[in-house]
């Protein structure tokens, strides 16, 4: 994975809570066997109904999505962050994320940043008023800042290091092979193996 340190660009507001992964990428697009190519199908049903916020000219090319609480709830499909990334988003800011979605995003190099509800509201209002507002999401300094605002955020330190270093987590786990082998040797004998 490429290292991720900072994301700068314009924001797009998706002012809804409980946006589930079925909306982010509907099931008919989960049949691909690749990790890429999902961008055109992002929020497919909502966009098909017309006048969807992400299709408005003023939000085209935005790289930071600002969303409501519990973003990414529902299915474990990693296709959801893949689709957001393919569409052009590099970071998402929300008051909270569903656990699996947040994990999947960080693995994909998509920064899922949690800020308090009031700060997310401020960003949402800001970008609704002036779509050209620029934002910087700085993973190194753990800050979301721009003209007139500067918010600090918390993120799991280990996930942060993985992103900053662009590290391959499989290779990291493989380094502990002797621990894994030792663990395997002391597992109870009754535990099932698949035949």
């Amino acid at each position, binding site marked *: 994975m490429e290292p991720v340190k900072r994301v700068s660009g314009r924001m797009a507001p998706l002012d*809804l*809570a*409980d946006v*589930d992964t*079925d*909306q982010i990428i*509907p*099931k*008919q697009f*989960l*049949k*691909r*066997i*690749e*990790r890429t190519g999902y961008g055109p199908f992002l929020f497919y*049903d909502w966009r098909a109904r017309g006048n969807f916020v992400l299709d408005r000219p003023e939000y085209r090319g935005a790289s930071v999505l600002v969303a409501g*609480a*519990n973003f990414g*709830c*529902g*299915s*474990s*499909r*990693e296709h959801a962050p893949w689709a957001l990334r393919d569409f052009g988003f590099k970071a998402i800011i929300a008051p*909270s994320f*569903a*656990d*699996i979605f947040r*994990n*999947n995003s960080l*693995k*994909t190099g998509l920064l899922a940043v949690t800020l308090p509800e009031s700060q997310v509201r401020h960003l949402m209002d800001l970008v609704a008023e002036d779509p050209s507002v620029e934002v910087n999401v700085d993973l190194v300094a753990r800050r979301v800042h721009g003209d007139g605002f500067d918010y600090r955020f918390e993120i*799991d*330190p*280990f996930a942060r290091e993985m992103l900053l270093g662009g590290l391959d*987590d*499989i290779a*990291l*786990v*493989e380094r*502990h092979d002797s*621990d*894994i082998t*030792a*663990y*395997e040797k002391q*597992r*109870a*004998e*009754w*535990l*099932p*193996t*698949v*035949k």
Partner: protein
Amino acid sequence: MSDVKLSIPVTRTLAQKLWDAHVVRSAEGEPDLLFVDLHLVHEVTSPQAFEGLRLAGRHVRRPDLTVATMDHNVPTRGGVRAADELSRKQMEVLAENCRREGIPLHQIGSRRQGIVHIIGPELGLTQPGMLIVCGDSHTSTHGAFGALAFGIGTSEVELVLATQCLPQKRQGDLAVEVSGELGIGVTAKDIALGLIGRTGTSAGQGHLAEYRGPTIRSLSMEGRMTVCNMSIEWGAKAGMVAPDETTFAYLEGRPNAPRGAAWEAALDYWRSLTSDEGASFDDVISVDAAALEPHVTWGTTPAQVVPVTGRVPSPHSETDERALRYMDLRPGTALADIAIDRVFIGSCTNARLEDLRAAASVIQGRRVHPKVRAMVVPGSTSVKRAAEDEGLDVVFKAAGFEWRNAGCSMCLGMNPDILAPGERCASTSNRNFEGRQGSGGRTHLMSPPMAAAAAITGHLVDVREIM
């Protein structure tokens, strides 16, 4: 390992015990490295993981702790030929990946194929004390056996295939204490829906939930699986029930359950898998089961739910207003006045034998309403066979239900079983998100007896009125 043991507190919750037992390595400032006892794989979330392995020249570390099935996109009639080209391709790719890596596969048409969360327990592969993962959010189902089980994404699937391990940050502990006797016509599904209605969609985030109390103890394994299955719908990372005699009776004699001396040794360990007296939880949620009524969702999240005796509520938020518009409902409408077009009895939540029996007992001797199209999709090929052995298929078919082959089917509509735009469905599945069962389709979640009752009357109805 020794460092880990020193840090173990004197009283622990069930979840903490399960966690501690799987720590391969623990270090300050890093997530714990956990060992996975069973990795369940299906056709939709695995192809990119296998491809990643192949590109990196890696192989599956423990194919003997990995099992695959085809469930998400399989047609429920007409066999593999009825699948669209992309679905067929995904099934072929899974078969090829399993062949190459030596992973046992229950493919479409085989005797033990079925929904991944139904066949694990059925085959006795799901046992107390295990850590089980799968690229599917309803993996929490297996927690019903006193296992630590949760859903993962495709990158994590790749990591588990390669290393049989998963780095995980410690989670908080929640207890859901359920007491009181369930009334007639009220089921495990209503415990789950009632709970989610109260907590909302995200109360469980960052937590492992233990369902406990006399009502949970009195549930069958099937009922416990239904409750654990829906843990993710209120945001919990996992849900679990401490194993007891009900668990052991379910497991004994199953194909992969231990036998003889191994069974006795396993039992000794399994009996230790309870939260210690005085173990502390971050929060305890109490549910009075005696006060529960059959529940039905009215909106587009499982938390938008009311007792069937109630009315569509007034909106309290923009999310509510949006849901009302999508569902084409007006506040104040009695639920019993809402007509339905379709009925789906199926899914990893409610398609086990007990669920089909409960639905059949309501349907026995009655007919599906002429305006309703109803289908039963057994959770596995084994469930289908067992149901046929006791004649349940005859009951359903005589009433006008379609009797299909096993799969996820209309729970998520990846196969040909979908709602048409605007169609309204009484469904025993787990998600009522917009378009979940088909673009523009409208889903009302409920228990199998409630869905059966709706099929007969043609509208949402309190099953207790027709029992």
